[in-house]
């Protein structure tokens, strides 16, 4: 009886019911969407680097170390000695290391001096590996591999020659013009800061600064790509390095060992910890988003109550008829409750579907333009709790008109109120 009458009643109030369903659906989609973007942004942020146990650099602020090493934000204050790096690299508990040498830029994009370990060991978003889309990894002194975004922006192809500038500002007057680099590869997009970096070898980084010991171009450069051999270049310093231990349990012990390393003032930072710390300082943005979507949801629920409540006068007549035909007051209540619950439930289902549809459509766009990676996955437990609360809220809200109808029906008896 209830399903039959509810179906007919909703059919009768098609437009109003549809609008209610739509407002619930939109607010559900918005709430879940914000949740997804929030999580996507956080995961994207904290998963920029994975499987790295420690980031090691010169003593200073741990957050700064992470920012310049991983995000290429800010500038390093000090370097560490290459000899210290090689020593730590050979510690028995170390699995692999990736050296990072910063300081130069190409048209505003940071140049990263590193070695083949980056391409072998660097992981992001769990177990994603860096891949070279076109070409190969840098081997020669003047080889350069471009991050995807850099290559896209300047329309570079392999075997293009580029000139790096000294320092990290976008407008640099000091260029390494005597030592042009040859593009040997372009990296696959990763939706991480890697896309905005360009990679050369540590030797390359050292080579372009030969004679620059004072921070300005040397008096007699005399250095040409032809007269330099990789074996002849002595690497003096690097900025920082990434490290993975053979067993995670050794991380803390190793951290202490590096922090108290006698020859060189160094520190080691656990990246996950630092990233979470950093994210928390940014979390007010996500809280605002969350608050806005909650407001939208409240409006959606209120619209259901309002529409049911306003239709109540019109229904007072109907309810008297149902009562006369033997429907108890309880049945009248369940009729209204069922209707509001059905509307909310339909809204939730459509809203969730809408979310997945939108995700499916905007995902590639978000990933390429905002470096925001949103996995399409089954609703998380938090999201299920949200959906459950919305359903619960909707049903609770449905009680308001239902109780009013109950009171009316007891009071009216079989009198039809017009």
């Amino acid at each position, binding site marked *: *009886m209830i399903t*039959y*009458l509810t179906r*007919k*009643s909703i*059919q*009768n109030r098609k437009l109003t019911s549809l609008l209610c369903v739509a407002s619930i659906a939109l607010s559900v989609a918005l709430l879940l969407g914000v949740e997804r973007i929030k999580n996507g942004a956080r995961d994207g942020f904290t998963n920029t680097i994975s499987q790295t146990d420690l980031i090691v650099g010169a003593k200073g602020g741990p957050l700064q170390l992470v920012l310049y090493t991983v995000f290429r934000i800010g500038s390093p204050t000090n370097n560490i000695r290459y000899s210290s790096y090689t020593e730590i690299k050979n510690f028995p508990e170390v699995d692999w290391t990736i050296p990072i040498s910063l300081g130069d830029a190409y048209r505003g994009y940071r140049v990263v001096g590193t070695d083949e370990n980056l391409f072998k060991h660097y992981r992001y978003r769990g177990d994603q590996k860096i891949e070279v889309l076109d070409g190969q990894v840098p081997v020669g002194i003047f080889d350069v591999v471009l991050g995807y975004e850099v290559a896209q922006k300047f329309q570079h192809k392999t075997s293009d020659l580029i000139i790096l500038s000294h320092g990290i500002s976008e407008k640099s007057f000091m260029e390494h013009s005597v030592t042009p680099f040859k593009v040997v590869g372009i990296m696959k997009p990763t939706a991480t800061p890697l896309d905005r970096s360009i990679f050369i070898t540590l030797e390359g980084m050292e080579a372009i600064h030969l004679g620059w010991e004072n921070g300005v171009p040397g008096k007699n450069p005399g250095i040409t790509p032809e007269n330099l051999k990789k074996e002849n270049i002595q690497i003096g310093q690097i900025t920082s390095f990434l490290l993975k231990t053979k067993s995670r349990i050794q991380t803390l012990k190793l951290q202490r060992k590096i922090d108290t390393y006698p020859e060189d003032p160094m520190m080691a930072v656990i990246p996950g910890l630092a990233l979470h710390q950093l994210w928390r300082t940014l979390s007010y943005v996500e809280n605002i988003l969350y608050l806005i979507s909650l407001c939208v949801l409240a409006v959606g629920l209120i619209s259901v109550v309002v529409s049911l409540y306003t239709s109540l006068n019109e229904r007072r*007549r*109907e309810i*008297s*008829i*149902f*009562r*006369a*035909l*033997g*429907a*108890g*007051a*309880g*049945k009248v209540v369940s009729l209204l409750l069922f209707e509001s619950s059905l509307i909310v439930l339909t809204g939730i289902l459509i809203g969730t579907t809408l979310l997945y549809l939108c995700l499916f459509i905007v995902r590639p766009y978000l990933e390429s333009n905002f470096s925001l990676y949103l996995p399409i996955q089954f609703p998380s437990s938090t999201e299920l709790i949200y959906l459950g609360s919305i359903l619960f809220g909707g049903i609770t809200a449905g009680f308001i008109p239902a109780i009013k109808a109950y009171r009316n029906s007891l009071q009216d*008896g*079989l*009198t*039809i109120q*017009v």
Partner: protein
Amino acid sequence: MKLAINMQNLSFHYEDAHPILKLDVFEVKKQEKIFIYGPSGCGKSTLLGLIAGVFLPQQGTLEVFGLDFCSTSRSKRDKIRGKEIGYIFQTFNLIPYLSCLENILLPCIITRQRKNKITGPLEQEAALLAEHLNLTEVLHKKARQLSVGQQQRVAAARALIGNPQLVIADEPTSSLDGKNTNEFLKLLLREWEEKQFTLVFVSHDERLANDFNRSVSLPELNRIKDLRK
């Protein structure tokens, strides 16, 4: 002969404690067709609400088909109303978005016991009633598309489906013109001849009383005289 309705020394007031209805004896025999004369504001809706088991008197006896309503639970009374009582309102009897047929079948949808009283196919039963009440052509039209006369006849068909023992008509003709009133009354009484249910017919139009076994004036019956509501 057994009584369909038995009210003794009954009094009733709503929550505001202002007395509405007080009567010594009111009895309706089974299969009787009784006319109750009641102008507006004499406690008529209250009386019908009591008979239908929606309200309970604060004092006195109220029995319908021998069942003491005062000691019967609300849901039981709802069930009895659904099963054995047909109710026709003055106006707005129908659910506007349901068809004529669906409106006639509504009691069977709401109360299972009513449905179980019909042995044959439901639709056939409804169609038969519709035929009796000159509604065959409009059977599949939406209620809101019907004329007022047709709507009242649909209401009668709905009250009659499943052969309830008691039919209460609350001013069913007051919204109809003379021609429709006569037709409605004629058809309703013909059904009564055939099915022999108890018919309680309330109207402020005393001219209709001639067609009934007995006529009762509610203002005379009700001992509360200064009813101003």
